[in-house]
């Protein structure tokens, strides 16, 4: 039997890699992909919990996470395109509209 903690550790590692990708890359699309990676790592841990606790809630939550992720990806990419139309770059260190 595989212990629950293994799954969680795997999830933690994947999550950290996702965070790293998000913080270190300059390409906005890859940052988005990193985001998806983090979401998936969480999903893994949720499903694992669900299995070991013999509860359905974890799976349902994953279901919603996937929904939100889909919505987020759609909107995020749409914003990206809209932005790109005005300002043809997707390098994140060239986008500083938040600067006051």
């Amino acid at each position: 039997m595989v212990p629950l903690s293994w799954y969680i550790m795997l999830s933690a590692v994947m999550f950290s890699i996702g965070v790293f990708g998000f913080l270190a890359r300059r390409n906005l699309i890859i940052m988005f992909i990193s985001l998806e990676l983090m979401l998936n790592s969480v999903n893994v841990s949720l499903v694992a919990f669900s299995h070991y606790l013999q509860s359905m809630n974890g799976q349902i939550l994953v279901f919603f996470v996937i929904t939100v992720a889909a919505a987020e990806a759609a909107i995020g990419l749409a914003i990206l395109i809209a932005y790109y139309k005005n300002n043809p770059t997707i390098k994140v260190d060239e986008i500083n509209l938040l600067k006051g």
Partner: protein
Amino acid sequence: MTVHQLIFIYFAIAMTGISLLVVTRRNPVHSVLFMLVLFVHIAALYLFLNAEFLAAVQIIVYAGAIMVLFLFVIMLLNLRREETEEKFHRQWPVSAGAVAVLAVFFIMIVSKIVVLPALGEYSIDAIRSEGSIMTVGKVLFTKYLLPFEIASIILLVAIIGAIVLAKKSTNS
């Protein structure tokens, strides 16, 4: 070391490796493709965890829809210039350090998890007797009906939002 454990170790190593590849490829198309591979692995892992329905959704929605969307966008933007430039942000060493420490802490915390005897009503047998999809469906449409409806609205909003944002503005 059981077969299960061996298989899990394979998945763990493969998934970590693929994840690293995803975030380090210069060409976003490559990243997306590795991501697809990763999704397949995750789906497989779900099967081990008695979540057949989610495994299917993972493939269909993530691999089939979201990642394809990413590919479309990459092609739409036609990013040749990006490939020649520095791919990491200036702050990447700090990020790497922070993430490493974070990972260590995560693992330290996670290793303390104690697994109690399973108490829930959805034991493996129970799920088997009804079938995974039916079980998920029953919970989803009874206890989680309202969140489900709200999720559908979120999707609707996302659809409209995406169209409005991405369509060519007519007046400018």
